[in-house]
């Protein structure tokens, strides 16, 4: 690594802070940093290299980051001068620890400076965390994604293939020695009474011993999560020696980088870094010295993004009491909206759309049975023959395709004739909105387990002729969701709508992913989903949702009940002082309670301005279409409707020609 090359390492943001896009634009405008790449590197839960280059350029970028209070370091990383030596035993004397390595003994003196790196060298940590995060996103919602805290990460590492490195540092934070501990591969007798039969427990004990004995101590557990150069692990099984060797080299590189960062003077202890916001120790340092690396800007710098205040407020409110793993449990819980389970399907009522096809089917079925019972199966054949030969069947089909053709044409024109509303100013009536689909409930597609706002699952089974037959169709028409367009969000109730989902997946029962195939291929499923976050087009009827909760009458009754059970308050209405409430007094009390409740409701309504999604819902109204389509443009959607309409009208013309031809032939035969 050339000494001329400098890195800017950033502490990633778990969630995009306010005005994050402005921040990215600023980096692009001033330093031509790609916005997409910067976003990728600035968001996460660990450290990342933002950019690398010559010192003068990096200092300019560092100054910009300093203006925005982005936690970062400007370093010229040292080469890995030596890798940690494997230990075979240890001896504890007072607070100093001496490790026995192959050729020499390495002593870590009491009150020294120690940096420790604990890592899962099988590289399974990132995979596990990603799995947990995806599950958390699916079942709790993206706003309530739960990040694992340091204690949980610590436990997960110990459950994998842990390795522990200790770096002994001098006063200038230079590495003077380093050792590597493989659990179960050293003699734990040196741990004395604290030693156990569990190799992983011994690792924990050793870690604690070193922490207690050191004057200054840092533990880092982010290897595999940090996006740092030379620290990208390879997934390794226990027998994959090449991958393990690579990962151990990465661990050495990571350790040296952490020393470089610590040398800059302000590296937060990972045990002090929360999963969410930076912790107070770090923040105090930050607020006192906003720029850590370049060090040129003073704390009096006026140019500030709101991030600093935001972090300070978050710390004051949320994390002021925590300082380390031990106190993690004491942290006050921050309330985040967690998605609730989808509502159960309501019993389907009879609608005119369903009753006519059903009536036609039932009528036809009974007619068929009657003819069979009358032993007139020849009549059935004759009816079938004459209805086709006379052109009646093609004619009916022609009428149907004609009607459906114009139906699609009407829908196309309806879409074209409706202007797009902004959600914040949506009015009651037919509206068209475009925006991103956001889940209201924790809806997950049943087969692909994708967080979605809508799914339709069709199951097929092979019949005797080896053809697929639909055996069931289920969907989430009863689960409403939100559409968000940047100005606001509005609820959409998809019940009874024409829904065009953009994602389709097929598979067989028992299939997992794309590689593990199912043995039973007599059944299959097809899943159409509208994945959360996709762009949606919605045309429907906007109306106010019925007020939920207590009605005025119910509230009055409740207050009156409370009044009855409170003799002290009742005394106020005992006007004649006889200790009893007569009818007239009770009427007075009732009138006053009604008045009070009414005033209370009016003042509550004035105080609490409801958000759009709380009182407006777009749904289907009788005689008006509800169209929900995953599409990239309205023109594309209307084009699809136009093509269907043209196809159906051409089909209708052809069927008419066929039916006339058959009719004339039929007449001639007669």
């Amino acid at each position, binding site marked *: 690594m050339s000494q001329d090359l400098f890195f800017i390492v950033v502490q990633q943001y778990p969630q995009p802070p306010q005005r994050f896009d402005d921040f990215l634009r600023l980096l692009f405008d001033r330093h031509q940093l790609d916005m997409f790449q910067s976003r990728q590197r600035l968001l996460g839960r660990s450290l990342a290299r933002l950019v690398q280059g010559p010192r003068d350029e990096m200092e300019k970028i560092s100054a910009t980051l300093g203006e925005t209070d982005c936690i970062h370091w400007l370093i010229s990383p040292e080469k890995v001068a030596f890798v940690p030596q494997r230990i075979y035993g240890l001896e504890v004397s007072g607070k100093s620890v001496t490790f026995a390595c192959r050729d020499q003994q390495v002593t870590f003196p009491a009150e020294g400076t120690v940096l420790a790196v604990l890592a899962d060298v099988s590289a399974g940590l990132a995979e596990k965390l990603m799995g947990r995060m995806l599950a958390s996103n699916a079942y709790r919602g993206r706003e309530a994604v739960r990040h694992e805290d340091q204690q949980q990460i610590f436990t997960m590492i110990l459950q994998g293939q842990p390795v522990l490195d200790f770096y002994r540092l001098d006063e200038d934070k230079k590495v003077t020695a380093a050792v590597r501990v493989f659990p179960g591969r050293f003699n734990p007798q040196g741990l004395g009474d604290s030693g156990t039969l569990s190799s992983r427990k011994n690792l924990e004990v050793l870690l604690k011993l070193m922490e207690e004995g050191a004057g200054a101590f840092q533990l880092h557990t982010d290897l595999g999560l940090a996006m740092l150069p030379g620290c990208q692990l390879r997934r390794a099984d226990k027998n994959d020696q090449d991958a393990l060797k690579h990962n151990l080299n990465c661990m050495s590189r990571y350790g040296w980088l952490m020393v470089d960062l610590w040398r800059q003077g302000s590296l937060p202890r990972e045990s002090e870094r929360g999963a969410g916001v930076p912790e107070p120790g770090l923040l105090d340092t930050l607020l006192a010295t906003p720029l850590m690396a370049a060090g040129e800007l003073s704390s009096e710098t006026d140019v500030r993004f709101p991030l600093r205040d935001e972090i300070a407020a978050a710390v004051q409110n949320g994390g002021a009491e925590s300082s380390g793993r031990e106190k993690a449990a004491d942290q006050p819980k921050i309330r985040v909206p967690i998605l609730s389970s989808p509502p159960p399907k309501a019993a389907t009522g009879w609608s005119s759309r369903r009753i006519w096809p059903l009536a036609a089917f039932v009528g036809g079925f009974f007619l068929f049975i009657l003819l069979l019972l009358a032993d007139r199966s020849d009549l059935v054949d004759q009816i079938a023959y004459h209805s086709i030969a006379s052109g009646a069947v093609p004619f009916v089909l022609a009428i149907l395709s004609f009607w459906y053709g*114009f139906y699609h044409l009407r829908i196309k024109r309806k879409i074209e004739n409706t202007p797009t509303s902004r959600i*914040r100013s949506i009015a009651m009536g037919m509206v068209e909105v475009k925006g991103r689909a956001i889940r209201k409930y924790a809806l997950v597609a049943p087969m692909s387990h994708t967080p979605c706002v809508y799914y339709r699952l069709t199951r097929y089974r092979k019949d005797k002729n080896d053809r697929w037959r639909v055996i069931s169709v289920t969907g989430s028409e009863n689960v409403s969701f939100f559409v968000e367009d940047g100005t606001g969000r509005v609820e959409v109730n998809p019940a009874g709508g024409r829904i065009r989902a953009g994602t389709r997946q097929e598979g067989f029962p028992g299939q997992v992913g794309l590689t593990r195939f199912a043995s039973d291929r007599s059944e299959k499923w097809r899943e159409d989903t509208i994945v959360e976050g996709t762009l949606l087009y919605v045309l429907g009827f906007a109306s106010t949702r019925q007020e939920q909760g207590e009605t005025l009458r119910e509230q009055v009754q409740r207050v009156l009940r409370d009044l009855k059970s409170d003799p002290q308050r009742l005394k106020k209405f005992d006007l004649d002082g006889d200790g009893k409430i007569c009818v007239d007094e009770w009427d007075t009390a009732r009138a006053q309670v009604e008045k009070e409740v009414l005033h209370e409701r009016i003042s509550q309504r004035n105080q609490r301005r409801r958000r759009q999604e709380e009182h407006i819902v777009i749904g289907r109204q009788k005689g008006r279409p509800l169209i929900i389509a995953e599409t990239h443009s309205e023109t594309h959607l209307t084009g699809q409707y136009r093509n269907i309409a043209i196809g159906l009208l051409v089909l209708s013309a052809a069927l008419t020609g066929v039916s006339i031809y058959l009719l004339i032939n039929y007449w001639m035969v007669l």
Partner: protein
Amino acid sequence: MTGWITLGILLLLLLGTIIYTIIIYNGFIALKNTISQDWSNIDVLLKQRFDELPKLIKVCEGYMQHEQRTLEAVIKARSMVNSARTEEQQLQAQNMLTDTLKSLFMVVERYPELKADAGFRQLSYRITEIEDQIADRRELYNASVTIYNTRLRQFPDVVVANMFKFQPSTLWTIDPEHRQDVTVSFATG
């Protein structure tokens, strides 16, 4: 036989043309109604703004002892909205009210105590929110008018439009004065 088939298909085409004409005609009627509805929806918000103003003025009065002229201008513009009879008067009065409100919010900068008042903050936020919604709905109205006017000139809609004498609608346009650059003066008075 071919003649009969041709006749049948021609009849179908004729039926199709009639139905398509009906669809176009109904589309025009629906669009005209949408335009009227969009216009009325703007009025709904203007009324909301009108109703919120007395509260705002009441809050401001306590702090802005030296800005009686500005406050009086707002009150006068509000009463003009109330007394406007024709559509043109109404439009003028609403524009005047918008202008006076802008002046009021500019003057407020000189009164930090007023700016810090929770009631004022809530009301000014509410009025700004309504102003944004009014702007959105005006855009929506213009979008509806544009769709309607485009349809009037497109084939085959133009045939039906001429047959039933549908007339183009007018877009909402701002007062030409508002197209000029804003001059900001920091003089007190």
